């Protein structure tokens, strides 16, 4: 029961979602919409479970005195957003949106922008011409980098042309090879899951 019921649910959901793909019939559409709706709702609940686990771990560590100030900041942030939403709504110019625009969004954008620095340090370190492959990697990167600097375009249109060619033929061909491989690997994994052979999610106990 503990194994069979989930496997049966998995199989039925999988088979239905597979079959509906090929059908424009209203019944098939309804199946898709229903399962998709359930999916979204269950996901929202798992988020609640995750948050509960997060709060539990943090409280436990605070009581042990481990990094208590930081843990408290985290929990305060977590509580702040719902409180603002409850008291001021979530529409434009609400305190909730204010907190989003002035606290959360700038921090997210800044973490994202760290990438600029890491791109620089990785370039310095990762493009050394150690062997034939590394030379090709280096050459392709340089061609595109140079071809995409606005100044190069003003000097000559050869580089942008080479860049275009590299991207659209050799590079595109390899990308397709990777995509086909991933597509096949994903497909076989998905099939094992539906057939109940792959039971990673049933592990434990």
């Amino acid at each position, binding site marked *: 029961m503990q194994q069979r*019921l*989930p496997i049966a*649910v*998995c199989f*039925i959901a*999988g088979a*239905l*979602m*597979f079959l509906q793909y090929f059908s424009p019939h209203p019944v098939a559409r309804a199946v898709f919409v229903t399962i*998709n*709706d*359930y*999916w979204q*709702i*269950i*996901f*929202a*609940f798992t*988020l*609640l*479970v995750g948050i*509960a686990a997060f709060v539990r771990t943090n409280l436990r560590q605070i009581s042990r005195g481990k990094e208590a100030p*930081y843990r408290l900041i*985290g929990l305060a*942030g*977590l*509580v*702040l*957003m719902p409180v603002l939403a409850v008291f001021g709504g979530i529409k434009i110019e609400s305190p909730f949106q204010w907190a989003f625009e*002035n*606290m*959360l969004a*700038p*921090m997210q954008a*800044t973490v*994202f*922008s760290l*990438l600029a620095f890491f791109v620089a340090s990785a370039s310095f370190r990762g493009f050394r011409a150690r062997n034939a*492959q590394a030379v*090709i*990697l280096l050459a*392709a990167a340089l061609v595109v980098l140079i071809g*995409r600097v606005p100044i190069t375009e003003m000097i000559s249109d050869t580089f942008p042309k080479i860049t275009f060619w*590299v991207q659209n*033929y*050799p590079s*595109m*061909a*390899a990308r*397709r*090879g*990777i*995509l086909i491989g991933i*597509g*096949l690997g*994903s*497909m076989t*994994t998905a099939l094992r899951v*539906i057939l109940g052979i792959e039971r990673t*999610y049933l592990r434990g106990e």
Partner: protein
Amino acid sequence: MDIGLIIAGVLTLAIYTFLYKDNPIYKAAESLLIGLSIGYALVIYWQTTLVDRLLTPLFARGELLMIIPLVLGLLMFTRFSNRLSWLSRIPIALMIGAGAGVAIPAMLYARTLKQISASVMPLMDGGGFNVEALVVIVGLLSTLAYFYFSREHKGAMGITAKIGTYFLMIFFGATFGYTVMSRMSTFIGRIDFLLTDFLRILA
């Protein structure tokens, strides 16, 4: 000066201190970021999913069938019990199964069929030899050979796979080069915020 801008500026700088090394200021900003982002997700999902798609249909419109996802969702909470936690596998199984079911045709269509058709081009074009078509075919087939796992890469297979790795390297190098631009833009955007809005050096 607008208090919001000051907060945003200070938080921006706090994150940047990480580039020097991990430190209490970054750690505090990081904790705040994690907390706020979880709180934000909670509010958004609560409103757009739980209220709009579950609670309103169920209680305001009386769609009794919505009890099913409600129960499935609540089963996730059995994870906190040792005895009943197996029940949470049912909703997980539904999610995994549904995802897998839709993945099979979607993966085969978008990642396989579409890619195959796009690669077929005549080798002779308007009387001349089509170099591009040849490059694409050789690139694709040799990359596929690289991803052939059942046999050791020796002999003809080895050479083909080796050519495949060269094509892969072209792709990786070009993609890296291409993405540098975008990554730099984000940083330039932050500098713009710091110089224009926060420090008001540029007006």
